[in-house]
Structures are given as C-alpha cells and as structure tokens.
C-alpha cells in the first residue's frame, strides 16, 4: 500500500496519504476512533471502493483497477453479510460454488472449515436461527474455505457481547497463527489491537499516526493522540513546566532522569517549542509511596485523593488538579479526537491492592519519571522518543 488517498464524492479525504507495507503472513491491525477511515482503507484493499490516488500493490502486482473478485482476498464484514436464503453449509460453500469447484472438493473443504470452527451441527440451519457468535464463525468459515491470499476483517467482534468477544479474539488469533495467512484487521477497540496484532497502525482522521508493534505503541507513542488512544485506563495528561531535569506538575515538582531530560531539552530546542508542555504518565507508573519497600528511582509528591476504586488486584485513585487554560483547551481537543467524553482534570493512578489510601486522604504518591512522556502542546509530538 503506497500513498493511498481516498476522497469521497463530497471531496472529503477519508484516507489521506497512508502507506503501509504488510509482510507475508503478518497480522496487521488498523485502529482508530470511529470515522477515521479504517473501513474505507480496508474496502480499498479489497476493491469495493475506488482509490483516488496512490498504488495498491498485492504480491508485487498493482491491483488498483482489479475487480474485487480478481484480487483473491477474503473479507469478514462487520455485520457478517451472510446470505440468509442459504444454509450455513451453502454460505460457506458459496465462494467455491462460484469458482465452479466440483462437489466432492466443496464438501471436503466445507467440512474441514466447519470442523475448525465447530459448526458441524449447524450446517443445515439458516443464518437467521444462529446466535451472534455462530454467525460470526460462519462468516469466518466463508473466508477460510477458499485459499485466499489474505484475510480482511472489518470490526468482526463489535456485534458480540463482551464475553464472546474475548473468546472469539483468542479464536481468531489461533486461527491466524495456524493458517499463517496475511491478515488485516480493522477495529476501534485498542484492546483487540494490542492483543491480536503483530503490528498496529493507528489512524486519525484518515492520516496514519504510527505503525509499530503493540509494545512500541505503548511504550513509545509518537504523539499525544497515540498516547491517549492506546492503553486502558488511558494515559494521564498534565500541564508541565520543564526546567532542566525539574518538571513542575500541578502536584509539585519531580525530577526527570538525566538521559530523558537531555532528550527533552534537545527536542525543545530542535522543534522550537516554548511555554508549558504536556506530561503524559500512565496510571501504572504511579504508586502509593508507602507500599514501596525499597527506594526506587523517581520522585514523590503529595496529593488529595478524591475517589478510590478498589478492584481486588489493584486500586484506582482519582486525584483532581487545576489546569491552566491554554493546556485545557488542547486536552479538550484531544479528547474530542479520541471520541471521549469531556475530560475532568484529574489524574487516575493505579495503586497496589495493599495500599491503604482512602478517599479524602492526602497521600504520598510515587511517580516513575523514567516512564514519563512530555509532549509539545502545539504539535502533539512526543519529545521523549528519539
């Protein structure tokens, strides 16, 4: 995929200059909030949507002008798009029938697919009588039955309930590993993205933000958007003033490790950033200072705890803070991009379950400054990645 641009009839660039190179057998995820052009991109790969400009190359061949049926790709639609007038068996067999495969081969392949997907006892039923998870598996059966060059999934799990979604996620991962087929998978759910993908492409309003392994996305997000999108609960963003290694947060000052401080200073100079920055810290990079036995790197500060949610294995504490206007504006914009509800200026910190902090306390909180990110409020760029 090279420099793909898609403009709809109304001139709206749904996908803008996206280049992704998917290796053979790789599992790539396209993720982003709804409306960011994921489906459009997928539909361009499969050929259901014209490509305004750029080249779509599959296996060394430019396929921009090929009809969907000539691309030999299999797709699972968000709403499954099963054929309601055909039985499960015929639904799965449909691509083979079109390819004029003889009956014996069809039967063998359909039975194999149905065994893989545990659909054997449903083969004679109509899709209308199946549960959501079963329909999902029929749709996958229809995809795997023909030896397609790649699988494309468009939010295949979004119509399932939470429990089933977890099961099917594992199922899809197992299937993909076993068949070893190149897969492009669209989702708006960052958990799916992180757990399934070899690599994940984060899109925002049609523009590719970052294409990296899940770990890299998590640890080294290139900008505010990726940082806020990946991770649950999301990364906390705080206004921060940086002077050398000293970072002033609304709660107090903390010290950056030397190396990180230098990186930030370089980036600030290089990009000509001025004024306060935005600090991004994930909830798990905080801790109740009193439960830490040994002295670790990082700094501590004291803060008023608003609410504590104790979950058994851990606890979340909410710390409200006051933010200056210029940063709030930027954070509100970010929140809109991420599809979120309006952000209260508070920090979510994840505490050890043994922490005795309760609501209303003033607690001593430790912060892992070596994992703290600093962002340029204007461009959103992460100043702490090299």
């Amino acid at each position, binding site marked *: 995929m090279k420099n793909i641009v898609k403009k709809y009839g109304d001139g709206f660039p749904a996908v803008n200059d996206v280049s992704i190179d998917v290796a053979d057998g790789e599992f790539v995820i396209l993720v982003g909030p709804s409306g960011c052009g994921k489906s459009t991109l997928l539909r361009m790969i499969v050929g259901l949507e014209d490509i305004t400009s750029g080249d779509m190359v599959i296996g060394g061949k430019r396929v921009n002008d090929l009809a969907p*049926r000539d691309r030999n790709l299999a797709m699972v*639609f968000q*709403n499954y798009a*099963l*054929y*309601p007038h055909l039985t499960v068996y015929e639904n799965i067999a449909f691509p083979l029938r*079109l390819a004029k495969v003889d009956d014996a081969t069809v039967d063998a392949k359909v039975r194999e697919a149905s065994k893989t997907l545990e659909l054997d006892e449903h083969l004679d039923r109509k899709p*209308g009588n199946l549960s*959501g998870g079963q329909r999902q598996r029929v749709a996958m059966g229809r995809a795997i039955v023909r030896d397609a060059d790649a699988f494309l999934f468009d939010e295949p799990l979004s119509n*399932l309930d939470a429990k089933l979604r977890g099961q099917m996620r594992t199922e899809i991962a197992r299937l993909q590993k076993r068949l070893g087929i190149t897969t492009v998978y669209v989702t708006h759910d960052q958990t799916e993205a992180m757990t399934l993908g070899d690599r994940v492409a984060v899109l925002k309003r049609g523009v590719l933000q970052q294409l990296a392994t899940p770990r890299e996305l998590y640890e080294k997000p290139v900008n505010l958007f990726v940082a806020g999108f990946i991770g649950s609960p999301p990364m906390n963003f705080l206004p921060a003033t940086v002077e050398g290694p000293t970072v002033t947060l609304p709660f107090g000052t903390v010290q950056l490790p030397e190396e990180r401080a230098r990186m930030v200073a370089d980036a600030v100079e290089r990009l000509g950033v001025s004024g306060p920055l935005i600090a991004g810290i994930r909830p798990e990079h905080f801790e109740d200072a009193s439960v830490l036995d040994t002295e670790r790197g990082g700094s501590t500060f004291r803060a008023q705890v608003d609410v504590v949610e104790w979950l058994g294995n851990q606890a979340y504490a909410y710390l409200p803070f006051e933010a200056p206007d210029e940063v709030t504006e930027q954070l509100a914009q970010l929140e809109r991009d991420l599809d979120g509800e309006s952000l209260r200026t508070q920090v979510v910190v994840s505490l050890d379950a043994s922490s005795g902090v309760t609501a209303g306390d003033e607690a001593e909180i430790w912060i892992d400054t070596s994992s703290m990110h600093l962002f340029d409020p204007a461009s959103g760029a992460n100043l702490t990645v090299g």
Partner: protein
Amino acid sequence: MAATTPNWLRRSGTALGCVLILAWCLLPVVWIISLSFKSQIAITNGSPGFFPASGDFAGWANYRDVWDNDQFRRAIFNSIGISLIATLLSVAIATLAAYAIARLEFRGKKLVLSMALAFAMFPVVSLVGPLFDMWRTIGLYDSWPGLIIPYMSFTLPLAIWTLSAFFREIPWEMEQAAQVDGATSWQAFRRVIVPLAAPGVFTAAILTFFFAWNDFVFGISLTSTENARPIPASLSFFVGSDPFNRPASLLAAGAVISTIPIIVIVLLFQRKIVAGLTSGAVKG
C-alpha cells in the same frame, strides 16, 4: 378511554366488526355462488331465496354448460395466456429496472421514477381511444400483444416502485460480500439479490396478474373476436342458447370459474411472500 372499556366488550366489538366487514365483502360472492347453482327456469321465474327452492337446484349443470361452451373456454385460455405473459414480462423488466434505480446513480433517475408514477396515474379510458386507432393501423388490434402491451404500461410502474423499495431494503453488504467471494455483478444479482427480493418479486407478480386478469376496458375495446378476448369482456358477450333471455345462472357459473385461477395464483404465491426473509443476514 381504553382502560375504562371492559375487556370482553372490546373483544366482542372487534369480533362484531370483523363479521360485519366479512359479510359486506363476501355477500356478493356468496350470492353469485348461490345463483350459479340455481336452474335457469328458477331464475327467470324469480327465485328470491338464498338456497335454491326444491326443484330449482341445478347441481353442476350450469358449470358443465359454461365449460362446454367454446367461446368461454377460448376466453379463459386468452385470459390466462395474456395475464401470465404480461406478468412475466413486467416482473422481469421491473426487477432489472428497479435494481438499477435502487443501486446505481445515473442521470435522469428521478425522471424515470416520476414518469413511471405519472403513467400509472393515467386514467385507463383516456388511452383506449388512441390505442384503438393505433393498434388498428399497426395491426395489433384483436391480438394478444395488443393487450399485453397496454397491461404492461400500467403494471410496470407499479412493479418498479414495489421492487425498488424491496431492493433498497437489502443491505449493500450482501452484494459486496458476494463480489469479494468471487461473483461477477450478474452472479451477485442473480444468486444473492434476486432470492432476497423474492417476496417483492412475488408481490409485484400478484399485483400485475390481478390487473391484467380483472381488466375490462381494454379487453372489450381492443378486441373484436375470440382471438384475444379475455374473460371479463367475454362474459359480457355471453348470451347462451337463448339470445332473448340472458342466462344469469350460466353467467354466475362463468364468473365463479373465472375467479379460480386468481385464487390458485394467490395461494401459490402467498407462501413465497414471507416477510422478514432478510432477517439473520446481518448483526448479532
């Protein structure tokens, strides 16, 4: 209001209403059936009772007489042939047209739709005169195509509107899925879209058949012989053995026979009209 009405009252009210409507609708039908079983003499003498008085009962004699009549048999044949051909053509063309209207963007789409509606609203009688002249010149007068064409011009718009509504209901994804699965546009249309639109196709077919079967104005004006005269027109010419005495009971028997194909068609097609056939195609 509803809460204060006792339940039994409401229910018996509904029942009473149903009975009244049924009686209102069915009385003429029942009466014509009763007539068809009375003997000719009984009717001439005046036979007011619903059930034939003793001695007036004709049994199947009237039916046998009509059926033995060549003119009648020929008319039935004409009607069935003309109606079936008009229905088939109309549904086939309408399916293709409606698909294009529902799925494709082309210039003049609105025009086609509103023109179709305008044609359907034309009063039938206003066309009879011009058609009579035209058909005589072209040589279509008193022939099957001479009736099939005007029937289609009235049933096509109806069928197109019905079917395009059905096609619009079918999710786009069905077709796209078929294309990804390796189907050409035509295969996707024939193997996925048409089966899904089947209820619509049959609805359109029934409506078209009714129109063609029940037409009287075209049937009587555009035919002159048994060549193409359909049943409603033929019945009005039906004089039986005695030209001075219109055979009411024979006519009644003929009318009853001529409704049989309609009933058969409805029974055949209504099974196909299963609403909600697309349920299960999408979502969980």
